[in-house]
């Protein structure tokens, strides 16, 4: 105990916290930690852990996921230290390991090894015990000499012993722990079943004249232990793959990296010790450990997991690389710009972590059913045993064993989270992040999709076309003034103006804007002054004609107006290119029976044009965010389930008002995007794919729940009636859990992407 207490108190050092926790912005002094729990076996464990942790003073909220064994704990650093709640988890019989910790991998490896080793012992002993049981099944009465039969029973006993003592140890350990804490979990009936079978058989071996007769069940015993362990083993492997995208993301960063020292020599340092400004060397095959800029060398980078872009991207000196992407072809020198929690990678991981710990409603229902169901099973086993006892005590106990072993609330409680995690993982690999698993359930029911235009159906990197200016103002000057304001905004039009200014007249010192305020979806207002002069500046507005208070320009292109205290100053026309897959995506959505709408704040003419090009029949331009929201509410009051697709920034309230929301666009700061789904790449087809996948996910969840219900409804009565031998019961239970997980795993397979025209 002393040895394991030391590392726990080490975690109380606030410097260690950032490795597995992040401070909550809304509540100062509160941290959100992500941990992996060991020793969890089923949904009942998740409830117990949550209860145990909630009782620790200072722990504000706890969410534990039974499917991924991960938990999210919010705690206040004034009232408790990490070791406080970690010890609480230990007292409840589980071990909490900080996620992202280097130890976690090491420990998981030894956990897998031990699981495999237990399985092998059970497997080999089972095979040999089968051999010894064979003569007793086939021999005619009198063929088998009594002393030889006794020797075979002896040999079976010897080989069953390691199975009982070693392979079954986790079942017994968990059952004892649950008993000492007066609660029920899945392992209790199973452990009881094992102990009874082995006990009956051992008595049969050593006292053939006893009440149980000379009948032995070593073959049944080893067989169902083997099946159960196989089931658990495969579940463990599948769970690793199901949560695969999540794990792949979190384990993406290397542990160490070669950093250039003061004399130009390279030394390997832990990634955690990197600071902005450091120069590091990243070899081919390594992942970039931080966001940065390439100083020397040219290579190809694989950013598939972060942006959904599956092609390797060329990266030369001067181009930016992002943490978590892979360096594919050559060694490069990189200057570090952002590390740790500031990187986009860290934001993505934080999103995925909180999503995987969130519990969909269907899963909570299954968790609540699990406990009473287990109690019912124990009672049913007792009744069945008592009923058969007068007839034949040995047979009565084996009937009770079959009841105990065959029941499977695991299938019930795994049904929902396994499918949703598989789906979230598959979506993440294609550049769509799910913020709440519950959203998948809602998305499946969506029958109306509302698109925003700019930055969603069209590319946000719009090209600057003609610039109309007031007499006496040059194009360059107008652009420089507009860019000074636009730098304060992430709106696609602003970004396009800034990009155009940087491309055409890059004189960064000409104008400066201050006191800039953004009215979402309408424009920017602020004061413009020539830099270097101590001037208050002139008030200026950049945005829609209505926002700037000027007449509507005679153009139906996307545009922005600039005005100052003397009125209209310039109009910037922006060419819009439709996303390549916009038309195909709309067609795919319509084919799925979904109604598609286009709502935009832009000019009605421009909106109509885009609607015609993409095949959207209902479009409305010139909407303020309030009007958009009102339209959305109207649709919802008609009983429609509405999904909103926007750029996540300018239409925040509208996104929040929809049943399900997609934030779109590579430049969205993830922490700010208040959407249920965040699309990282720039393929619109992801929206249609996500909808398809959500529908398939819910179909599979329903299949799983039905399967679990039918399986238990059929098998428990069969076992009570004594028609189900113990080995078949073990096979049934392992098979049932596996079927649920395998069914969920079908969701990881690719869905045909929307064809790009």
């Amino acid at each position: 105990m002393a040895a394991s207490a030391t590392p726990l108190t080490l975690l109380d050092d606030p410097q260690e916290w950032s490795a597995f926790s992040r401070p909550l912005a809304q509540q100062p002094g509160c941290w959100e930690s992500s941990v992996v729990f060991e020793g969890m076996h089923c949904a009942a464990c998740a409830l117990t852990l949550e209860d145990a942790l909630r009782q620790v003073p200072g722990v504000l909220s706890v969410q534990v996921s039974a499917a991924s064994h991960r938990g999210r704990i919010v705690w206040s650093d004034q009232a408790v230290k990490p070791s406080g709640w970690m010890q609480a988890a230990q007292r409840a019989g589980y071990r909490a390991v900080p996620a992202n910790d280097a130890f976690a991998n090491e420990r998981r490896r030894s956990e897998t090894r031990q699981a495999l080793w237990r399985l092998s012992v059970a497997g080999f002993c089972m095979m040999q015990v089968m051999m010894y049981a064979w003569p007793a099944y086939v021999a005619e009465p009198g063929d088998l000499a009594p002393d030889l039969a006794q020797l075979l029973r002896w040999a079976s006993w010897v080989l069953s012993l390691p199975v009982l003592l070693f392979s079954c140890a986790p079942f017994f350990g968990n059952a004892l722990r649950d008993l000492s804490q007066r609660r029920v979990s899945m392992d209790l009936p199973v452990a009881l079943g094992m102990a009874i079978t082995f006990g009956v058989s051992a008595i049969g071996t050593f006292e053939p004249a006893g009440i149980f007769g000379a009948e032995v069940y070593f073959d049944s015993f080893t067989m169902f232990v083997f099946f159960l362990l196989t089931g658990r083993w495969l579940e463990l492997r599948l769970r690793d793959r199901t949560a695969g995208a999540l794990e792949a993301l979190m384990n993406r960063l290397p542990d160490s990296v070669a950093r250039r020292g003061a004399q130009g020599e390279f030394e390997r340092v832990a990634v955690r010790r990197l600071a902005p400004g450091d120069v590091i060397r990243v070899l081919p095959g390594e992942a970039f450990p931080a966001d940065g800029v390439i100083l020397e060398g040219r290579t190809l980078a694989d950013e598939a997991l972060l942006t959904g872009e599956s092609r390797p991207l060329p990266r030369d000196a001067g181009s930016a690389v992002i943490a978590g992407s892979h360096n594919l072809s050559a060694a490069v020198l990189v200057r570090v710009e952002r590390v740790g929690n500031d990187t986009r990678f860290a934001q993505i991981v934080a999103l995925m972590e909180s999503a995987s710990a969130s519990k969909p409603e269907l899963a909570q229902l299954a968790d609540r059913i699990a406990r009473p169901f287990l109690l019912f099973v124990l009672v049913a086993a007792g009744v069945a045993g008592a009923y058969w006892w007068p007839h034949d005590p040995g047979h009565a106990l084996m009937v009770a064993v079959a009841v105990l072993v065959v029941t499977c609330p695991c299938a019930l409680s795994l049904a929902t989270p396994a499918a949703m995690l598989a789906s979230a993982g598959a979506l993440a690999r294609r550049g769509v992040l799910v913020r709440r698993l519950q959203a998948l359930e809602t998305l499946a029911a969506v029958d109306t999709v509302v698109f925003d235009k700019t930055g969603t159906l069209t590319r946000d990197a719009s090209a600057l076309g003609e610039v109309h200016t007031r007499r006496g103002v040059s194009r360059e000057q107008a652009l420089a003034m507009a860019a000074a304001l636009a730098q304060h905004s992430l709106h696609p039009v602003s970004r396009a103006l800034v990009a155009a200014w940087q491309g055409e007249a890059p004189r960064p010192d000409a104008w400066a804007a201050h006191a800039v305020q953004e009215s979402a979806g309408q424009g920017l207002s602020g004061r413009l002054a020539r830099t270097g002069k101590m001037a208050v500046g002139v008030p200026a507005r950049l945005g829609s004609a209505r926002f700037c208070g000027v007449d509507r320009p005679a153009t139906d292109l996307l545009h922005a107006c600039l005005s100052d205290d003397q009125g209209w100053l310039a109009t910037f026309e922006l060419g819009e290119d439709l996303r390549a897959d916009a038309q195909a995506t709309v067609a795919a959505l319509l084919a799925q029976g979904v109604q598609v709408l286009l709502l935009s704040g832009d000019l009605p003419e421009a909106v109509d044009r885009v609607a015609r090009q993409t095949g959207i029949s209902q479009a409305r331009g010139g909407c303020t965010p309030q009007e958009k929201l009102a339209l959305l509410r109207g649709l919802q009051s008609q009983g429609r389930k509405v999904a909103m697709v926007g750029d996540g920034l300018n239409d925040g309230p509208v996104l929040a008002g929809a049943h399900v929301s997609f934030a779109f666009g590579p430049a969205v700061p993830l922490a700010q995007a208040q959407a249920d789904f965040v699309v990282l790449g720039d393929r619109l087809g992801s929206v249609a794919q996500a909808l398809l996948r959500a529908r398939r996910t819910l179909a599979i969840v329903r299949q799983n729940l039905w399967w679990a219900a039918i399986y238990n409804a059929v098998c428990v009565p069969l076992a009570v009636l004594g028609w189900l031998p113990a080995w078949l019961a073990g096979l049934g239970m392992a098979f049932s859990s596996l079927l649920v997980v395998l069914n969920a795993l079908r969701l990881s397979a690719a869905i045909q992407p929307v064809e790009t025209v």
Partner: protein
Amino acid sequence: MEILFLLIPLSVMLVFFILGGLWWAIYRGQFEDIDAEGERILHQD
């Protein structure tokens, strides 16, 4: 048939012997990262 009285205890011992070999293989990491060995030929170095 008498030979069975020798062979059965021998088979029990053989099982323990095989298990010993398996233990060695598992804890030497023979079953981890099975794909990597197959892919090794594709790597340059």
